[in-house]
């Protein structure tokens, strides 16, 4: 009996807090059959919200992937002044509230902000439009690729790279043929985490987007908007689609997770 106590506690807690609520969303969505679900899904506002989310993800993920790999290489393979600081700042978005991030961008690019007047004069619309939303999304998902790449690079050592260089390979060749193949799975795992974060971003985007329905509303904002306007089917529908994406992400995460972590 005592042998099973931890197992019962652990599984009970997981069920109560994670699995049962998730199952409930599924049930709630199809409460009144499939047709309201389909109706809510193909609604113009919903489709547009998913398009906006997709656009932001497509912008943020490649940028952060390149940035993550470059920063990872810089931190592990090179010495330069301010390296410790860079290392610390990479982690900052993980600890910072998304609301604080959103507000910071809001103050920087708003009409009275540092860059605000310059932008207004040149007719560039940052705030309440996709550029600021993209910046917010990039900000919150900066650390993931770098965080995965750094330990892998450390573990790897640079013997193979040095061997390649002594055999006459250029820096780019060394990177392409030696480094990249060995950190491949760490990058993939980081990209998956980045994607999940971009799709799910709420707080920062909520502030800089101005939440204009049908224009700057993302899928996550749509969930809140629909729920607060008593359109619970709409909220649950968008929620379920996002949850389904999350499950796919989870499966890919499990499959690509660096081995030492699955142990």
């Amino acid at each position, binding site marked *: 009996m005592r042998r099973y106590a931890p197992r019962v506690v652990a599984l009970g807690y997981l069920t109560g807090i*994670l699995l049962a*609520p998730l199952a409930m969303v599924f049930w709630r969505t199809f409460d009144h059959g499939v047709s309201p679900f389909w109706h809510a899904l193909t609604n113009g506002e919903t489709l547009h919200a998913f398009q906006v989310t997709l656009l932001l993800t497509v912008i943020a993920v490649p940028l952060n992937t390149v940035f993550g790999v470059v920063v990872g290489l810089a931190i592990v393979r090179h010495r330069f002044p301010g390296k410790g600081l860079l290392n610390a700042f990479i982690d900052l978005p993980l600890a*910072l*509230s998304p609301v*604080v991030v959103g*507000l910071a961008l809001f103050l920087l690019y708003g009409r009275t902000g540092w860059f605000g007047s310059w932008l207004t004069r040149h007719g560039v619309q940052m705030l309440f439009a996709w550029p600021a939303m993209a910046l917010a999304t990039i900000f919150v998902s900066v650390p993931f690729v770098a965080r995965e790449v750094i330990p892998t690079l450390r573990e790897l050592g640079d013997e193979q790279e040095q061997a390649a260089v002594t055999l006459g390979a250029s820096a780019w060749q060394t990177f392409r043929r030696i480094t990249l193949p060995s950190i491949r799975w760490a990058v993939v795992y980081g990209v998956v985490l980045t994607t999940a974060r971009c799709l799910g971003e709420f707080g920062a985007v909520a502030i800089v987007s101005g939440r204009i329905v049908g224009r700057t509303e993302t899928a996550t904002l749509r969930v809140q908007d629909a*729920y607060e306007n008593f359109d619970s089917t709409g909220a649950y529908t968008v929620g379920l689609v996002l949850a389904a994406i*999350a499950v796919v992400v989870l499966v890919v995460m499990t499959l690509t997770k660096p081995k030492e972590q699955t142990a």
Partner: protein
Amino acid sequence: MIVVLPIAALVWESKRDGAHTFRQVVSSPEAVAALKLTLGAAAVVALLNALFGTVIAWVLVRDDFRGKTLVNAVIDLPFALPTIVAGLTLLALYGPQSPVGLNVAFTRTAIVLALCFVTLPFVVRTVQPVLHELDREMEEAARSLGASELVVFARIVLPNILPGILSGVALTLARAVGEIGAVVLISGNLPYKTEVSSVFVMNRIESGDSAGAAAVAVVLLVVSFALLLAIGGLRFLVTRHERA
């Protein structure tokens, strides 16, 4: 460019109207209530996570049952799921139309529940590898010398996994203090009662008071920095035997 500059602008804005305004906003009753609630809820959640996270990690490492791999994968779900959906799922089960007759919506319990959901993986994922590496010989030696299971856990296992638990707790605190997506739907955001700091900041911005929002945001920023430092310090302590 992306990380540092916006934060500089934030600190600047909070100071623009002078330290007096800053103090006035931060010490206004509504801001204080929100801050107290945020820190209190984060502390409760950290405690719950330390307890349940350790039990879950223990079960994942030491126990064996069918479907364990699946359970192990499910732990990461809160990382993959958008936080607003996390709030929505909890609302579906523990909200106004709860099928199990538990309605916690718009209460402080709801906030704790939502934060527990989104921070679930932290302690599990920091304790799990430590527990996995732990040499069982020590425990067996203790047992053969007549120690009870409880004593073995308290005297042998716990001291070893404590750094893991603490760094998980620090991550939990950092996340819980800043969380908004999971909380915003289920808490009802009633000022003085269920309004957390991040929601307070959001409301201030929406009503055009960006100086007030910046003041509270700077407080949150300082808390985040402190927790980051704590995490860094813990990491230093945990890896000291590797460096030696």
